[in-house]
């Protein structure tokens, strides 16, 4: 049952073959059994989950069910959830019980999806391995000695280990797509502005975007239907008509032009990943698609640009964590300044502090023009490259990450090496474009390989169509990690 697709689960619920409570219990049991080894969850509260499931059962019995009602979902601990501990993976918020629901949480509640708990993540979503969490690293279900990627590492790992049929994630520079790739699941980052950021703890506001993580493109489409929509509480949320993201899933791919950015198949790409991605291209050709070579020349600057802009915004976004009103406060301090310094020195981990320092530096007087403004200009150029590319192709395809999962601790001493993991995912965030990752093979160690699609603005339905057709023709997404109960 834990391998079932969301539509199968929905059908079983509708047919009363299983209740939402029973279904939730199946996943809660797997969490109880597997989570101690994987550490994908920061908070699990079975009573709350079962209460919400009971509510879903009432809706189903009353004939009020939507397409996802009764199916449980796990939420990244970056979303404020009323009455739940909401830590953002940080000591700073290790005692913070949110008094309100993020819009994303509200929407899933409205859809009737009980919450299975709050998933582990890199502290304040800053990391690509889930090793920066105050609550400990998450292990990759495919091999517990390996990282699951980050920052939505807990979300990816819990779906990969079938501890949840679906999860929410957030993606600032690849935080949905890279862990999806490293754990062999499907994850989608929507166009910037499609999903409300209200209640989602901000890392880099102009880049952050929430999205679904699940076992297939079809499941992601259903979840996206529940998540998206204008929210007057988020000024960057886009006012546009609701779409059904499942509408194009079954369309044939004949005539599809798939853009292959030459820069994404160059130096730095692992051979096994390159081979798997090329095989995926061959598969799509069989389905009627035509590969087109394109160039994203400025994307080589994406990492330096990102590591100016994201820390700049973060340094300001994280100022509210000052020990004054909520969250962690240092136990001993001499005066106000000392309280600030000790609270933030003790409450934040090394990676977060590193980024706050970089951010404060690039915004400071005399450096702003050289760093922040310059980075904004290049960001524009990177977006222009994409616009140009979409004149000759319908969707862009490449690897999600340059390699497969790496060992715990392998890159944690070298931030730059770690940052390079997001080489292919960051450009879409800088341009505000939608992107997704789906499994396309395994390396010799049996670790999953991710294929990335990047679409034009609001072309989620098109990307999902391509991904779904690929998943109908292949079964990489159906593989489950072995050795797990």
């Amino acid at each position, binding site marked *: 049952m834990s391998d079932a697709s969301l539509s199968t689960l929905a059908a079983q619920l509708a047919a009363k073959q299983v209740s939402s409570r029973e279904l939730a219990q199946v996943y809660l049991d797997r969490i109880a059994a597997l989570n101690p080894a994987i550490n994908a969850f920061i908070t699990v509260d079975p009573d709350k989950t079962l209460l919400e499931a009971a509510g879903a059962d009432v809706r189903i019995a009353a004939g009020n069910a939507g397409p996802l009602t009764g199916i449980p979902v796990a939420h990244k601990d970056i979303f*404020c959830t009323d009455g739940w501990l909401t830590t953002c993976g940080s000591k700073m918020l290790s005692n913070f019980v949110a008094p309100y629901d993020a819009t994303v949480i509200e929407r899933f509640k409205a859809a009737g999806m009980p919450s299975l708990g709050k998933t582990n993540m890199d502290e304040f979503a800053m990391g690509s391995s889930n090793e920066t969490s105050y609550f400990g690293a998450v292990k990759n279900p495919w091999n517990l000695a390996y990282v699951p990627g980050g920052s939505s590492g807990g979300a990816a790992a819990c779906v990969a280990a079938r501890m949840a049929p679906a999860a929410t994630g957030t993606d600032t520079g690849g935080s949905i797509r890279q862990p999806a790739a490293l754990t062999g699941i499907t994850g989608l980052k929507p166009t910037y502005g499609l999903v409300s950021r209200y209640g989602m703890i901000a890392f880099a*506001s102009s880049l952050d975007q929430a999205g679904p993580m699940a076992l297939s493109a079809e499941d992601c489409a259903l979840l996206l239907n529940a998540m998206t929509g204008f929210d007057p509480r988020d000024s*960057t949320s886009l006012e546009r008509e609701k779409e059904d993201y499942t509408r194009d899933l079954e369309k044939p791919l004949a005539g599809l032009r798939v853009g292959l950015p030459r820069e994404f198949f160059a130096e730095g790409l692992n051979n096994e990943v390159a081979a798997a991605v090329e095989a995926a291209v061959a598969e799509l050709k069989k389905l009627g698609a035509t590969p087109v070579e394109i160039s994203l020349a400025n994307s080589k600057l994406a990492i330096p640009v990102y590591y100016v802009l994201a820390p700049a*915004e973060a340094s300001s976004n994280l*100022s*509210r964590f000052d020990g004054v009103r909520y969250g962690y406060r240092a136990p001993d301090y001499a005066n106000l300044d000392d309280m600030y310094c000790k609270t933030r020195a003790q409450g934040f981990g090394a990676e977060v502090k590193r980024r706050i320092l970089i951010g404060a530096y690039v915004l400071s007087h005399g450096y702003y023009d050289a760093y922040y403004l310059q980075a904004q200009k290049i960001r524009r150029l990177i977006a222009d490259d994409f616009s140009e590319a979409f004149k000759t192709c319908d969707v862009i395809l490449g690897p999600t990450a340059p390699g497969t999962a790496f060992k715990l601790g392998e890159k944690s001493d070298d931030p730059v090496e770690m940052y390079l993991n997001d080489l292919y995912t960051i450009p879409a965030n800088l341009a505000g474009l939608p992107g997704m990752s789906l499994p396309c093979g395994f390396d010799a160690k049996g670790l999953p390989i991710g294929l990335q699609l990047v679409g034009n603005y609001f072309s989620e339905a098109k990307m999902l169509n391509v991904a779904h057709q690929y998943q109908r023709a292949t079964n990489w997404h159906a593989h489950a990690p072995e050795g797990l109960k």
Partner: protein
Amino acid sequence: MKWETVIGLEVHTQLATKSKIFSGSSTAFGAAPNTQASAVDIALPGVLPVLNRGAVECAIKFGLAIGATLNRVNVFDRKNYFYPDLPKGYQISQLAKPIVEGGALKIIVEGEEKTVNLTRAHMEEDAGKSLHEDFHGMTGIDLNRAGTPLLEIVSEPEMRSSAEAVAYARALHTLVTWIGICDGNMQEGSFRVDANVSVRPVGQAEFGTRREIKNLNSFKFLQQAIDYEVRWQIETLEDGGRIEQATVLFDPDSGETRMMRSKEDAHDYRYFPDPDLLPVKLDEDWIERVRAALPELPVAMQARFQAEYGVSAYDAAVLTGSRALADYFETAARACGQGKLAANWVMGELSAALNKAELGIASSPVSAAQLGALIARIQDGTLSGKLAKQVFEGLWEGAGEVDAIIEARGLKQMSDAGELEKIVDEVLAANPKSVEEFRAGKDKAFNALIGQVMKASKGKANPAQVNDLLKTRLQ
């Protein structure tokens, strides 16, 4: 050496919106601490600002009223610093692209008209309040005010005396209350002035080093603070000292300014555009709708008062000291058709009575219509000026309408020729000595006779008629 003072003002006006600039919380003053602080105001994790269009509209009104450039695209920036009553750790403000640039304000100082140019005006949010008393060594934080919309209005350094600075601040205060974007309540902090003050030798082109006096909340303090600061700067320079750029506070008790922080302590605010807010776009329709709804502005009204009612430029300036005063005057003037007389009454009897009772024009016990009716009765000869003052007292006490008071108190002027002649003849008969003295050339005696007639008529005799009658009889 002769010194010249250079002053520029930065004024924070609290915009009169019902809710805060980036949240739906109320902006009402005086509520229990933290009862008007929402999740957004206390900066819970995950919350986002949403711009209140009412605040933007206030800024548009102001820009139109001073003839400024309205930036069709303007941008909110974050000003980053840590303070316990600044919940987000940054203030949302506008740096590089403010909503209003340029514009000018006319002021009158000692009868001279002068134009002060404005640099800019930008929208921003207020911080909360730190309460250092009553907490036994701790600090209380009240976030009710956090997120209250402000328009910071910055002048060019074009004022050359404290009197000019006060005149500018008053003119600005009049304007922002006039167009209804600020309640102008200085005690509650709705209108706060920072003064940048420097001195330089007369004739020197470059400005001297300035010091900024923060947070002056009355015109009196503004004047005192600048006067002290100017004396201090001149003395310092004449003693061979140097002025260091600094921020200072004015202590009303000692009448002195004291250093708050030097330039070295100045923050690097690390401004950058707020990614949570889109650039503010002003479309022409919106601007035109706001323009159409603007009231007649003080300068236009002054010109009209001079032309329409024949009042002097000075009187027109006084009468447009506030919109309520101007409206009062105009209602009274229209009711009686006597602009100059109405101006005299409003600026004379009425103002004196209001000042004595410490009342504003809006709470005047005598309505403009009543004053107009009173003046009409002077004009038609029913009342003498003296009697009119008695009727005014009756109106002030709430004794009824003008004619009813005249009737009830028997204040009608005696203009019946026969009746007056009778009184005059009686007075002449009873005062042969005065008559004799007058005929001997003593003018004073004439006045004494008039006094006797007025007395005999209990003050009701029409003075002009009495004058004529007496002259005729005595010739």
